[in-house]
């Protein structure tokens, strides 16, 4: 019974609970117990008591793992940082509230790279997360805890956030589905900000149907988020079996990126063949400026972060270092509370915004960002969707890149351009390379999430990737 329950996708489980065939409490108990026995480091907090269970909502009472970056009232919310140790927000993030209201009770808070800065989850202030496919390897990041929890069957589904790949890359490395929505599709209110113009939250799930189901309950304009928008389509679940008539583009510049592993390349090439077999056309397209995406990203995101993280000063919440005067209190609190990568990015960002350097760095990076968005816009006049590998590599060993920030940053080289353009993209498992999952990324124009899910669904069925490490 237990393994049968565990093998249900979230959508399947919700269907049963909504039909009255399954008591959502049973699901809760199963996952709460598994989460409690987590030895991957995926969770940072779990509730002691079961919440009120209600299967009547569209999400059927199926419990949800929530990245620790989301503020939840009275629940520890640290964004993976020691500086917010003990912080319990006085309010709940809009996206979490909407999902709970739609019937997905919060199962726990998941581990992450500190303030979402990282691609391996090794930058967490509370220890790394292990990849359930190979516990000597990283799960990716920054939503590493959410990805590992879903892949290991420690949660039916999860939400994470993606600033420059933080949903898609860990989904790829853990062999699950991760959807980064259009910027503005989902409210950011209550997401502890990393880079405000890029941050978006989205689902990490076992399959595309689950992603579409969860995403459909997250969208909408929020009066608390001026950058959020009414979603222009009604939620729907994917059903496409073929890709007839669709045009796919393979961006030459991204595929020429150095460091794409042969195993990743092989899975990608097979996927492209499958796309054609399903009736779509595939052509090479140009995204001429996408090669500069990572450089622009590593100016813009740290710049915004340097301001977003300035509020952690020890005055009002989180830890406070004892010091003889105000300035030393600020300095000591931040020195003790922030990890190395966060400090590195605060320094990068502060520098990029400094008087005399602003135009050369921040200003220039904004121009590149505009060019990249223009590239995508032009590409989508020729093709419906763009396909790439999600990450150049499979999951790498713990510790392999901690001493080399640039190598770490390259993990997101294929994911960052979509973030800069604000467009949606999904990562689905394309197959295995040396026993490790490889993700394939599908990107579409703004607000094309349900079309992307349709295509991803057809492709998912053709790929037949049913593997999860605990099965």
């Amino acid at each position, binding site marked *: 019974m237990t393994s049968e329950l565990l093998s249900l996708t979230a959508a399947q489980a919700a269907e049963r609970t909504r039909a009255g065939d399954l008591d959502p409490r049973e699901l809760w108990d199963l996952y709460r117990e598994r989460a409690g026995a987590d030895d991957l480091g995926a969770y940072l907090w779990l509730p002691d008591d079961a919440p009120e269970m209600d299967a009547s909502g569209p999400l059927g009472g199926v419990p949800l793992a929530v990245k620790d970056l989301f503020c939840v009232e009275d629940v520890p919310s640290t964004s993976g940082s020691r500086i917010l140790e003990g912080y319990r*927000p006085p309010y709940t993030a809009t996206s979490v509230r909407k999902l709970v209201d739609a019937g997905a009770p919060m199962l726990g808070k998941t581990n992450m790279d500190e303030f979402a800065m990282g691609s391996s989850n090794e930058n967490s202030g509370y220890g790394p997360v292990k990849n359930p496919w190979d516990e000597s390897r990283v799960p990716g990041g920054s939503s590493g805890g959410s990805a590992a929890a879903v892949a290991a069957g420690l949660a039916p589904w999860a939400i994470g956030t993606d600033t420059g790949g933080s949903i898609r890359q860990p989904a790829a490395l853990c062999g699950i589905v991760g959807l980064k929505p259009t910027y503005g599709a989902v409210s950011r209110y209550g997401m502890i900000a990393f880079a405000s113009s890029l941050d978006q939250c989205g689902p990490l799930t076992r399959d595309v149907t689950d992603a579409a189901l969860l995403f459909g309950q997250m969208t909408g304009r929020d009066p*608390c988020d001026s950058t959020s928008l009414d979603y222009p389509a009604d939620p729907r679940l994917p059903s496409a079996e073929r890709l007839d008539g669709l045009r796919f583009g393979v961006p030459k510049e991204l595929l020429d990126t150095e460091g794409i592993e042969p195993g990743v390349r092989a899975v990608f090439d097979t996927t492209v063949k499958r796309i054609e077999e399903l009736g779509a056309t595939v052509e090479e397209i140009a995204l001429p400026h996408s090669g500069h995406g990572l450089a622009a990203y590593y100016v813009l995101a740290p710049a915004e972060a340097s301001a977003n993280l*300035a509020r952690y000063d020890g005055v009002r919440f989180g830890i406070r270092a004892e010091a003889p005067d*105000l300035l030393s209190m*600020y300095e000591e609190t931040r020195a003790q509370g922030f990890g190395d990568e966060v400090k590195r990015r605060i320094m990068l960002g502060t520098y990029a*915004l400094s008087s005399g350097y*602003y135009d050369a760095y*921040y200003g220039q990076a904004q121009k590149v960002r505009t060019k990249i968005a223009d590239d995508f816009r032009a590409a989508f006049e020729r093709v419906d969707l763009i396909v790439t590998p999600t990450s150049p590599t499979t999951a790498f060993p713990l510790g392999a890149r901690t001493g080399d920030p640039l190598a770490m940053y390259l993990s997101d080289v294929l994911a960052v351009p979509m973030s800069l353009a604000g467009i949606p993209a999904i990562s689905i498992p394309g197959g295995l390379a040396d026993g490790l999952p490889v993700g394939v990324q599908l990107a579409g124009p703004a607000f094309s999430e349900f079309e992307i899910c349709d295509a991803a669904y057809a492709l998912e069925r053709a790929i037949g990737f049913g593997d999860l490490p605990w099965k």
Partner: protein
Amino acid sequence: MEVASARQYEPVIGLEIHVQLATDTKMFCGCELSFGLDPNTRTCPVCLGHPGVLPVPNRRAIEFGLMIGLALGCEIAPRSIFHRKNYFYPDNPKAFQISQYDVPLCSGGELAGVRVHRAHLEEDAAKLVHAGESGRIHGAEASVVDFNRAGTPLVEIVTEPDIHSAAEAAEWARLLRETLRALGVSDVNMDEGSLRVDGNVSIRPAGEATLGVKTELKNMNSFRFLERGLDAEIARQEGILREGGQVEQETLHFDNRTGALSSLRSKEEAHDYRYFPEPDLVPIAPTEAMIEMARAAIPELPLARAERFERDHDLPADSARLLAFRGEQGDFFEAALAVSPSDPRTLANYVVNDVPPGSAATPEAVAKLVDLIGAGTVSRGAAKEVLEVLAAEGGDPEQIVADRGLGAAGGDELGAIVDQAIAENAGAVEKIREGKDQAIGAIVGAVMRQTKGRADGGEVQKLIRERIGA
């Protein structure tokens, strides 16, 4: 060769005015605006800068900003942008202030000959209260923060350096305050900090076009202190230049108890605010309809009121401006004028000079007094005495005249006094008859002395001429 000590210097002053808007709620959250309430009772996660919160602009504040811009003759930007101004300080919960930088809501206006460089929207900081002797953060034993004020909507108005004396600066600031008061966008109370005026001051040898090094003066919380502070700084800069020194660019704190200026920070300590566009907000793009609504909401402003007083009531320009630029007195004048429209000049003169704001006199009483003068019941001289009583104690002018015997001297009483004065000033009578008309003054003066000013000067002259046949 000219020596420095003999040189004449010309002050060049620009003002920066922070106006707290009288909206119901804060600039970027739904917290109620308050003054003088228990500390930290009007706060929420947004204005406390909690992790994960986002700002949402206050529509009313934008409308008020538009009204201010239009009233000052500014251009309204089609898409103005909020920036983050980064600095660490405990009064600044996010460690950045949301303000406007390179594209302000309003730019390029003018008020009474002083050009307005820009007017932009921003949010106020929290209030710090420092325990200890100094009253400032330096040397404080402890500091506490009241976040009730954090996030209050502000409009910052920046003038061009078009002002050339401290008195002119104070007078212009008064006009601006009255303009804002008339707009109904702010409480404009300098004591409570809803209107805060900083001055940028430099001096240069008279006649030169290049600007000298400027200093910024803060903490002048009344118009009187603004004038005193600017005068003190002008004098300080003159002193430095006359001794051959150089003014240093710095920000100065004016101590309104001692009148002393002390340095808050020098140029070297100046902040690098690392401005960049606030990614959590979209540009403000006011529609034509919004701009038209704001324009329609603008009432008669003090400058227009002064022109109207001058034109419709034949007031001298000076009194028209004095009345219009001090809104309360303008209102008093108009209320009195509604009761007694016959002699606006006399009325204006009394309102400007004799019944200061807050006096016990009512507009009706002052109007009635003007009527009594018009009817010849009270002389202008005696009226001054009635005004003193009105200002100090209030009351009814007729009653005051009756109680104090201030009624105009006339009839047999005045005739007898005139006769006596003629008899006692035979020399003057002779001179008048010789054609030295001004000699009549001596006889009039004698009558006025005798009547203690209760007689009408014109009436007295007429009586004298009748009697001596001149």
